[in-house]
């Protein structure tokens, strides 16, 4: 995108953004630094590790904590990917209907979705725990996917509906005149045009599920536990030792896929794909 900002404004924006960048980066770098410190130097108060030690990574990937971390990582990946996929597909259909069709109860659906998304999660956990135990969904991957869906769907529907509304009606009408069925017009014209929206939604959905702690700790035990929950069960070498280093290392590892994901899709998200569709 071409920016039309003057040089002076640009300089100012740069100056202002530096403290923000530092503010957001320091915790991440700190965790990275912690994960590279040996147990003895953990509390030395130095930002840059005295000497780099891979002990923490060894511990969680091949050592004692392996049994706890690796299954959790696998659970996280499966649960989040499945939840994201289902959520995006469902949201796509729902958002398309909301953007294009006039039907009674449309407002109601949108407000309900919004209400659900601002509902405090913690108040749902206890009844859900009891319910899941009764119907045997406790400590299963599905038992996590379902709450994640209801958590992410409202946001996904709202984002996608906004994207669909931006696409001019004429696109579908042109496709229909060209000989497309409603489904073909949706698949071949609307979905590609909305792909920045779809990717944005997918990433937001994935993050929400990936970072969730409350559901993960309450609705799982051994088998379906995801990484954020698993981190709480790390133990040190002895009961007098804090597992700080191991937790830091695990945190770094779970951050990596997120960073990769954002870098991969960043271009698709920002590209204004609809430009050139119509006059202008």
């Amino acid at each position, binding site marked *: 995108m071409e920016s039309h900002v003057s040089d002076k404004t640009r300089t100012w924006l740069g100056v202002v953004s530096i403290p923000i960048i530092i503010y957001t980066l320091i915790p991440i770098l700190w965790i990275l630094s912690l994960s590279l410190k040996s147990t003895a130097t953990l509390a030395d108060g130095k930002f840059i590790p005295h000497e780099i030690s891979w002990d923490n990574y060894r511990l969680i990937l091949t050592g004692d904590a392996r049994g706890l971390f690796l299954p959790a990582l696998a659970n996280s990946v499966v649960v989040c990917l499945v939840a994201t996929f289902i959520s995006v597909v469902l949201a796509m259909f729902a958002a398309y209907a909301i953007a294009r069709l006039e039907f009674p109860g449309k407002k109601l659906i949108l407000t309900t979705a919004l209400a659900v998304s601002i509902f405090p999660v913690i108040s749902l956990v206890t009844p859900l725990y009891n319910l899941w135990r009764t119907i045997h969904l406790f400590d299963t991957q599905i038992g996590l996917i379902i709450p994640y869906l209801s958590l992410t769907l409202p946001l996904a529907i709202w984002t996608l509906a906004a994207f669909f509304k931006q696409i001019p009606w004429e696109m579908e009408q042109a496709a229909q005149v060209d000989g497309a069925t409603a489904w073909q017009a949706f698949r071949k*014209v609307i979905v590609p045009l909305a792909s920045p929206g779809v990717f944005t939604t997918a990433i937001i959905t994935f993050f929400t599920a990936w970072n969730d702690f409350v559901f993960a700790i309450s609705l799982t035990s051994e088998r379906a536990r995801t990484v954020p929950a698993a981190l709480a069960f790390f133990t040190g070498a002895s009961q007098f030792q804090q597992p700080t280093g191991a937790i830091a290392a695990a945190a770094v590892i779970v951050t990596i896929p997120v960073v990769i994901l954002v870098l991969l899709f960043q271009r698709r998200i920002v590209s204004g*794909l609809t430009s*050139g*569709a*119509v006059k202008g």
Partner: protein
Amino acid sequence: MAKIELKNIVKTYGDGFPAVNDISLDIADGEFMILVGPSGCGKSTLLRMVVGLEDITSGEMLIDGKRVNELAPRDRHLSMVFQNYALYPHLTVFENIAFPLRLAKGKHSEEDIRKRVNTASSMLELDEHLERKPANLSGGQRQRVAMGRAIVREADAFLFDEPLSNLDAKLRGQMRTEIARMQRRLGTTTLYVTHDQTEAMTLGDRVAVLKKGLLQQCASPRELYEQPVNLFVAGFIGSPPMNFLPARVDGSTLKLPFCDVPVSGELAQKVQGAEIVIVGVRPEYFKDASLDGSKGVDFTAVVDVTEWLGNEQYAYIPFEADAAVKAKLDELDRDLDGEGMRTQMVVNLDARSRIREGEEARLTFDPATMHVFDPNSGDCLTRDEAKAAAIAEESEADRKRALERVREREAAEVG
């Protein structure tokens, strides 16, 4: 190739407002039909009903004698160019044009598609842009891609929805001739919506003039120009528009603001009993009396402003409209999307004329060229049905000859 028949088509919206009211039109095979009218006259709605994007409230639509009211757009075999082009931004120019062919699964081989797209693109001079995306094209190029997408499928008819309104004036002129050339060459039935009377006059075999959802007149451009049925058509067709002057009837004389015109014969009978009529004279029928001599009725008037354009010049002469017809003329002005400006007469003079602003000018016109309208109904009292029929016959013969030539050329190319 198809003939499109509209029978008593009505479109009513939820609030009961009839956007299109009882319109019947026959569009012959290979004919270039224009729907024209000021904004909100229902012309686009009518087009969208033909293509199937709007439901038809009542009436019947036939394509080649087959009722299509209930058919989905894709089953009507029509192609359409949208006002804002509606190109697919994620596809290249080639894929945009090939899109309709790819949708017809199994009908076209890859090679066939390539051949057809290339034919269309070379016709529209898009060859060097085939791999580009619509976002990187200029307005005129996008317009041509939209046309390419429409012609590649060899649809039964082309529909255009104000295709040139987004282009600048110069490009609009070029594309107008391009569309005319393409239609003649392909000989495909075409329905074209515009609000621009120049496009309507230059492109159409026949022009249907609409006002507030009602069909006013459907005729060849020449007939509309020379034999309009009512005030609205007379005022809409022609640029600068026809002058409407109030005239008091006094026996067999019409008293115009600047002069008296004697009437006789049939017209005298028609205006008898009426107190006041509206006289319409086209700007070009006024002449500079000092240059051309008398044409029948002479008068002098003070010219307010002149505009010299090189090949011609316009002179503007303000006048006070008679209170009895002021309301009618104002209403007409509103119907024509006017601004309710002062009543003035426009005179299109020879460029050699030495009439300058502020001067008293001697002008003349032939009373046979004037139209007389009933101020209440708006009907034209001077319309000559016999002449109108003759003009219609001539233009129909012209059109058939043009189509014949296309067929002959095609046959020659094939043979």
